[in-house]
């Protein structure tokens, strides 16, 4: 990167410093023992030199360096301050000034003069000039053979920071990150020095690492990473292979991999005699015999693995980049992992209950593995959304020409990954939204020119991650939504009562009302009876939400917020009598209490006043005819279902709960109100409620009972 810096800042400062320097030198002549004055002279020189070099005044910096060197010696009392020194320094000061003037367009200073001054100053030095300390950070040491760089090698880096390393503000993890940037790495962590938890001092570093790095950068690059900490850690870097010599080996003559024992002996972890004592299932026997600890064997195994991989990679130069797997196999895998997660939760609970230390250790280990397995499995099902995006290019092209509009589609975030099932179900809603944008959003070329826009409209389709969700946006630069038109249309269609007062946000929501279409005339693109209400339903079916933003004359953005995966649900676990249920957390807004008094106040009608708004609620207990007495104070989980607030009455709210969703199987395929089930840590089954379906179910019931339409 280039930072353009105005050099005038330096020259101004330098002139000031030179003036100061002159004063200080003259004062110094009067009192040559004054340390403060010597310091001032030295600092002025030092600053001119440092800044000069940074602002490209190399000649000034080089010249000043000589004066500074001499004054440094005067500062620590190696040489005395003499009249000769002051004369020379004053001359040097004039020379520097001349150099600066020359840079500003003045006359070139006399080089002989400079040489004379420098020679004079050097004459003041005791014996030889002080050695220039080379700096490792900026000059590469030539300890390693030059052939190292450029060819790929694997190194073993043993890095053991001293416990006090944090006290210099060092973060060892950043150093590991730097190593990672050099090439392929495998890191083994050693925790053998980690004390019991009561004795841990969080200000000390107990961890050490072995990093196996495959890189073409050579050993110097690795050494340089540790430059600041070479006195604060034990560091041992060793090249494990000499690839250069092996290149000529034919693939079928690949040398056998080194036995584990050999590696441990080489690494100095065990003695050869000990190795000979134990043979066969080596790793465990060594650990059991207490000769090495587990981490060391682990590291040796990694070393073996790295060597193996390198050889195998040589064996088959062409590596398959991907494997095609039928998706039902994946679904099975996800199912199994789901079961495993459930069993693991039970294991955690049981081991906590039994309070058995060994069992707890095992269960923690299993927990870690299961977590990794789950994340890995989920990531296998993730696909980039780009393939879906590509389909829309054609759609936009065909539709816009059919409607006589000119529209260009741009996309961003095609690499964003989503669960395959989500992507599959996203296609139809997206088609619909984009159709809407083309039909209602973007104006005809003439209309656009009239509005002072380019005749070519733009639709921008983008995807991005946002926490555990993905945001998919469809933005057009069309005419935007006209709230007044929306409201009058809605009144005309009987969607809302006349003289309704709606906020802008509420008006935008009207486009999702059933049977609502703002198209002036029904084209064969939109207005086929499939409205945005269907889109919203399918997005909410995916446990997502949909949001509209629009500015009149500028355009509209429709944002879909979707979960990354359908296999796991963030839920709110609730309890009624002895039954557990899970409500999708995405829909939950808040929980409020429902007392007997509240029920009496509303004369048994299922509504509650939440901070001034009336919210209808459904009593899950009654709905599923659960026996038993409700508690004095019940809880209402207020949720947003299809833009309406609805409460669900439960006995008790247990808390947030991340669960793996299990399908209910064929037996329950007609059960409307459940989207699945999950198994809690103690083996109990909790049903996951489909809030949308529940609300609709109850509405239909009420309709059937009353025979009247509800608003």
């Amino acid at each position, binding site marked *: *990167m*280039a*930072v353009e*810096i105005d050099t005038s*800042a*330096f020259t101004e*400062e330098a002139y000031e410093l030179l003036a100061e320097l002159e004063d200080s030198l003259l004062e110094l002549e009067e009192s040559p023992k004054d340390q403060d004055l010597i*310091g*001032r002279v*030295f*600092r002025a020189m*030092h*600053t001119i*030199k*440092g*800044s*000069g*070099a*940074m*602002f490209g005044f190399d000649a000034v*910096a080089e010249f000043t*360096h000589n004066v*500074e*060197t001499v004054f*440094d010696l005067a500062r620590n009392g190696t040489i005395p301050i003499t009249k000769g020194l002051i004369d020379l320094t004053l001359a040097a000061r004039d020379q520097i000034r001349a150099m600066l003037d020359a840079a500003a367009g003045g006359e070139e200073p006399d080089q002989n003069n400079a040489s004379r001054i420098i020679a004079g100053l050097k004459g003041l030095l005791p014996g030889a000039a*002080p050695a*220039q*300390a*080379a*700096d490792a*950070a*900026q000059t590469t040491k030539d300890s390693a053979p030059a052939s190292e760089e450029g060819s790929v090698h694997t190194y073993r880096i043993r890095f053991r920071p001293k416990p006090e390393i*944090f*006290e*210099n*503000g*060092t*973060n060892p*993890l*950043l*150093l590991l*990150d*730097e190593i990672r940037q050099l090439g392929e790495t495998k890191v083994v962590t050693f925790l053998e020095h980690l004390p019991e938890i009561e004795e841990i001092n969080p*200000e000390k570093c107990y961890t050490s690492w072995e990093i196996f790095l495959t890189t073409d950068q050579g050993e110097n690059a690795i050494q340089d*990473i540790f*430059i*600041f900490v070479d*006195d604060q850690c034990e560091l041992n870097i060793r090249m494990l292979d000499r690839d250069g010599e092996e290149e000529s080996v034919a693939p079928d003559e690949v040398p056998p991999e080194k036995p584990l024992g050999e590696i441990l002996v080489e690494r100095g972890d065990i003695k050869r005699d000990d190795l000979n004592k134990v043979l066969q299932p080596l790793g465990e026997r060594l650990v059991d015999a207490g000769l090495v600890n587990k981490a060391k064997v682990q590291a040796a195994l990694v070393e073996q693995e790295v060597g193996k991989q390198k050889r195998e990679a040589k064996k088959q130069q062409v590596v398959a980049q991907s494997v095609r797997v039928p998706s039902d196999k994946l679904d099975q895998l996800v199912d199994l992992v789901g079961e495993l997660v459930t069993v693991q939760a039970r294991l955690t609970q049981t081991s906590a209950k039994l309070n058995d230390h060994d069992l707890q250790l095992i269960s923690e280990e299993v927990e870690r593995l299961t977590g990794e397995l789950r994340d890995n499995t989920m990531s296998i099902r993730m696909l980039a959304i780009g393939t879906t995006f590509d389909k829309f290019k054609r759609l936009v092209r065909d539709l816009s020409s059919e409607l006589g509009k000119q529209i260009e589609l741009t996309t961003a975030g095609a690499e964003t990954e989503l669960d395959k099932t989500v992507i599959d179900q996203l296609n139809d809603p997206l088609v619909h939204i984009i159709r809407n944008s083309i039909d209602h959003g973007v104006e005809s070329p003439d209309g656009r020119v009239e509005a002072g826009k380019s005749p070519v409209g733009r639709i921008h389709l983008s995807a991005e991650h946002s926490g555990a969700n993905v945001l998919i946006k469809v933005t057009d630069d069309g005419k935007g939504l006209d709230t007044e038109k929306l409201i009058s249309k809605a009144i005309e269609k009987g969607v809302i009562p006349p003289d309704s007062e709606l906020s802008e946000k509420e008006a935008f929501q009207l486009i999702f009302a059933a049977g609502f279409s703002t198209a002036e005339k029904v084209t064969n693109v939109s207005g086929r009876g499939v409205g945005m209400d269907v889109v919203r339903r399918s997005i909410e079916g995916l446990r997502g939400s949909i949001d509209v933003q629009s500015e009149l004359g500028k355009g509209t953005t429709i944002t879909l917020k979707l979960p990354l995966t359908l296999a796991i649900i963030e839920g709110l676990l609730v309890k009624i009598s002895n039954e557990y249920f899970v409500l999708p957390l995405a829909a939950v807004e808040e929980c409020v209490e429902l007392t007997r008094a509240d029920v009496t106040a509303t004369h048994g009608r299922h509504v509650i006043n939440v901070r001034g708004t009336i919210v209808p609620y459904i009593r899950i207990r009654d709905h599923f005819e659960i026996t038993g007495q409700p508690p004095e104070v019940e809880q209402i989980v207020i949720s947003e279902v299809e833009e309406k607030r609805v409460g669900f009455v439960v006995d008790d709210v247990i808390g947030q709960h991340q669960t793996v969703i299990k399908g209910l199987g064929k037996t329950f395929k007609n059960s409307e109100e459940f989207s699945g089930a999950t198994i809690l840590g103690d083996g109990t089954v909790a049903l996951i409620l489909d809030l949308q379906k529940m609300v609709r179910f109850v509405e239909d019931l009420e309709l059937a009972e009353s025979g009247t339409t509800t608003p």
Partner: protein
Amino acid sequence: MAKTIMTVDDSSSVRQMVTLTLKGEGYNVVEGVDGKDALNKLKANPVDMVITDLNMPNMDGITLIKELRALPAFKFTPIVMLTTESQANKKSEGKDAGATGWIVKPFKPAQLLQVIKKVLG
């Protein structure tokens, strides 16, 4: 949340260059004109990292590093010192005082940023 770095130097031009370089990378920068000034400002508003020159009036860089390390808020804060080639002994003195690392003057903006990445992430 952008990280804040303090640059301490009695040379205004060096401060200016460090400030421009860091701001270009999106860091917030506060400046100190010498050790004393820096210490007063840092006591009031801690920062995520300090870059300090060694030779300064009123309080030199080594003393500043020692003073900062004695404050609880700066116990583990990365502190980088600016040294020159002729100050090899200063490097170990600075390390002993508690410096995290050093940058040798003269340096280029890219070198400065590389060191910041190393100690601040």
